[in-house]
């Protein structure tokens, strides 16, 4: 293809938006509509891959659209962290679309055009977040993401969906307007720039106390990272159809949150400054606390999706810890965990959706003995659980390893303990599900004979993501390289 890298970068943001027009026009012809979705996904992914290759070859890219406020406008660039995020999101979008076709049709959901359109807008916003070159651009796409996912959360229009949507929007808008926007403006005011810069934008002149406050505001402000006490929206968002929970609330939205926090830690504060701030320690403890608490709450959930949601909250704080540790291993672990968790959790959600579509079950207590009805699904569930827990042969092993190493380097004993306990808890709340599916407590629950797997497109999606969980364990090198690149960029300032 003979298009400049600049065009490619812009296309990643614009293309999903353009596809919305196509989706709406094709609203009366579902096959065409879904074909558009998938084709867009494939093109988008290949665009991101092109960017990835370009970046690995050392290209430096920066695109400026126009200024909204003098000195502040839409700016995009490529850097490893963003590329990582974009790769994951765009790839999983294709998979999720496949899955959604099976899920939505089988379920006979209404308003499918709206569903696919909002999905595409959300992806466009995710691309905007991934490639944002400054906080301002990031903030704008962050808000667009919130708003475009709101109709997805409330998709069913029931009272529960409305309530969930209210909490979702309430928390995300509240935190982003009250804290994040404030922090963004304050940063602009203090530093005079919002550009993501290796080594941070505060040149050591700013008052450390102010910066500490800013850091707290940022971490709380990015409500999508679901650090306690601003985590309530995530379980609420589970009223959405499963593909939404799978892609957006296991990957895109929450990862946008932790991604933003990583970006802010690495490129606004900088690795050198971060450990010096008094609030870092406090936030680390808070993240550790979130890891533990969320795991404990997850154990008590009987609804499968709610359990997975709390598990997500817990896992997100792993990544926040990685970012806040500001050590080499921490950054490596954090960025790798973005990918590892994405594949693991999306598989789990896919499985949950598949169970719901095929058997109509949402409660874990009802899932005893379904293993022989849905062997593929439950096997996938098992593997993905291993990855989340962080034991071989799951990819999660690597990222957790680095996170523990990072905590060791920083001498954060409390965190090491928290991570360890949490892993145990993970085992306790995830593994019994596939285990009981195959080996129920009461053998009479065993249903044999009739295979009732999910629709084929959904099943394919599950298999693909499960395979990735395994591949990432066996062959983590490209991911490691990318994480290393992230670390290198972040440390570029000290040469």
């Amino acid at each position: 293809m003979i298009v400049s890298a600049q065009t490619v970068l812009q296309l990643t943001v614009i293309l999903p938006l353009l596809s919305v027009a196509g989706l709406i026009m094709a609203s009366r012809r579902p096959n065409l509509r879904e074909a558009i979705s998938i084709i867009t996904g494939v093109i988008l992914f290949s665009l991101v891959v092109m960017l990835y290759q370009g970046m690995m070859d050392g290209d430096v890219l920066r695109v400026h659209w126009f200024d909204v406020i003098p000195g502040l406008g839409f700016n995009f660039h490529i850097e490893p962290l963003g590329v990582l995020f974009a790769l994951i999101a765009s790839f999983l979008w294709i998979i999720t679309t496949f899955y959604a076709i099976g899920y939505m049709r089988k379920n006979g959901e209404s308003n499918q055009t709206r569903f696919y359109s909002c999905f595409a807008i959300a992806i466009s916003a995710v691309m905007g977040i991934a490639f944002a070159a400054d906080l301002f651009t990031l903030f704008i796409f962050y808000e667009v993401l919130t708003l475009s996912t709101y109709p997805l959360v409330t998709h069913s229009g029931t009272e529960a969906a409305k309530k969930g949507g209210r909490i979702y929007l309430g928390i995300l808008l509240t935190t982003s307007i009250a804290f994040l926007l404030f922090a963004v403006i304050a940063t602009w005011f203090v530093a005079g720039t919002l550009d993501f810069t290796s080594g941070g934008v505060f040149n050591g002149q700013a008052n450390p106390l102010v910066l500490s406050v800013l850091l707290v505001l940022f971490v709380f402000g990015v409500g999508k990272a679901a650090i306690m006490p601003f985590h309530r929206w995530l379980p609420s968002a589970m009223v959405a159809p499963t593909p939404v929970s799978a892609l957006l609330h296991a990957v895109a939205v929450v990862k946008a949150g932790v991604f933003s926090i990583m970006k802010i830690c690495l490129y606004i504060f900088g690795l050198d400054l971060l450990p010096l701030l008094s609030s870092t320690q406090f936030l680390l403890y808070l993240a550790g606390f979130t890891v533990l608490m969320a795991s404990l709450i997850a154990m008590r959930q009987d609804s499968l999706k709610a359990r997975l949601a709390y598990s997500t909250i817990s896992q997100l704080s792993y990544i926040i810890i990685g970012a806040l540790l500001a050590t080499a291993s921490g950054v490596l672990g954090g960025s790798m965990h973005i990918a590892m968790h994405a594949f693991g959790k999306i598989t789990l959600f896919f499985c949950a959706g598949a169970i719901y579509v095929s058997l109509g079950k949402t409660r874990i207590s009802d899932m005893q003995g379904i293993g022989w009805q849905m062997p593929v699904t439950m096997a996938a569930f098992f593997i993905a659980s291993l990855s989340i827990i962080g034991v071989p042969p799951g990819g999660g092993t690597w990222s957790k390893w680095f996170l523990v190493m990072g905590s060791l380097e920083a001498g954060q004993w409390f965190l090491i303990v928290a991570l360890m306990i949490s892993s145990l808890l993970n085992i306790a709340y995830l593994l019994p599900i596939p285990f009981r599916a195959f080996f129920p407590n009461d053998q009479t629950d065993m249903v044999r004979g009739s295979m009732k797997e999910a629709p084929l497109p959904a099943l394919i999606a599950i298999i693909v993501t499960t395979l990735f969980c395994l591949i990432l364990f066996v062959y983590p090198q490209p991911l490691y390289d990318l994480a290393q690149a992230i670390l290198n960029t972040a440390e570029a300032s000290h040469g």
Partner: protein
Amino acid sequence: MLNHLPILQVIVPLLAAPICLFLQKPKIVWLFACVATALTFLISVLLLQQVNVSGTLVYELGGWEAPWGIEYRIDDLNALLLLIISSISAVVMWAGHISLSKELNADRHLYFYVLYLLSLAGMLGIVATGDAFNVFVFLEVSSLSAYALIALGRDRRALWASYKYLIMGTIGATFILIGIGLMYQMTGTLNMHDLATRLPEVSQTRTVFVSFAFIVVGVCLKLALFPLHLWLPNAYAFAPSLVTALLAATSTKVAIYLLIRFTFSIYGLSFSFTTLPLNVLFLVLGVLGVFVASVAAIYKRNTKRLFAYSSVAQVGYMIIGFSVGTAAGLSASLIHIFNHALMKGAIFLALGAVVYRVGSVNLSQINGLGREMPYTMAAIVIGGLSLIGVPLTVGFISKWYLIVALLENGWWPVALLVLLGSLLAVIYVWKVVESAYFKPADSDREPVKEAPLGFLIPVWVLVIANVYFGLDTRLSVGVAQAAAAGLFGVTP
């Protein structure tokens, strides 16, 4: 003709009003009014351009030089306000014929257009003039026509609202008159520019202090600044939709303009903010206004009232920016004036479309409209997002500048309060959104169709403006900053 632009700005609508009476047929009158308002808009654009090129324009009425005669003095501030007023009124007028056909008896249409044009001319006159007493005269032109326009609402409560507005408005105007009289007594002049040069000599007298107090209170009555806002919500709620759109988008802006003009240009910053602790007072009132009115808005069942309370809250933001007392704060206020006109114009006009189809704007009647009137409701949603201050809309730009201005002054807590205030907006806007999209239509409401195109086009012109000026701020921010700088330039 070009050097007569300042006066043409005012007399085009002013003379168009009586001409309407000769045309008689409502439809023709409407077309004529559309042309007149469009022309007014064109003039304001040209004026802005002229001011940009050649600086402040002075136009001596009757050929008598000020302070003996009355002069029009157009600087960036005036030009910006003129542009806001004339643009919104022109767009709103497009929807006139359609909207009125449902809301007003045919035999009143003629008067409606006449009063509308007069009200417009009155507001333009207030803004354009450089003479304190002339302000009073045109204030009355615009107010009287506004009272009558409000009273044309279908609900009988419109009458009562209008009456209350009349009493409050007249008290306000009379207060201003007293203030002007006292100023005249101390300086012997009525020309604003001349006043500004002569007031400092006598600024330490009690009389001047009292004159200032009266003018400020009078203007604040018009401005519906908390706690003097009580007349506003009902007046907006029960007026015909077009009137609400016009007034909400423009009339409080005119009052803010007066406040800015009097405090900054005439009395001067040192007097207003240093001698008197006015900024503190305004800050407190502004913040209180934001919170009290926003909370009140949350509990309203009638969406027009809901957004009317929101207007009171938004006035609070403008006053907060104003009370900062720096060029940045003032320009934040001005930007918000511009932006708020766009938001509220779009919202109230879209509500007009709802009234046109449904006949009521109670929340219960809006239930399920998201499906039936998708474009209209989408307009309200975008307008609402703008009120909240979501990025990509003008509301975000306003918030941004306001907060930067507050931070510059070191008022961190206030900045935080401003943001918290906008969260209240989330709640009341979302009440409307949920009704429209997630509640089933009431069984006793007939299904309705989307509003006619004649209504949708003006609504969407405003909506698109909301987004466009949320992205391209060169015009709004540029002029606002120039105006603020100008005001601070003349008052060292």
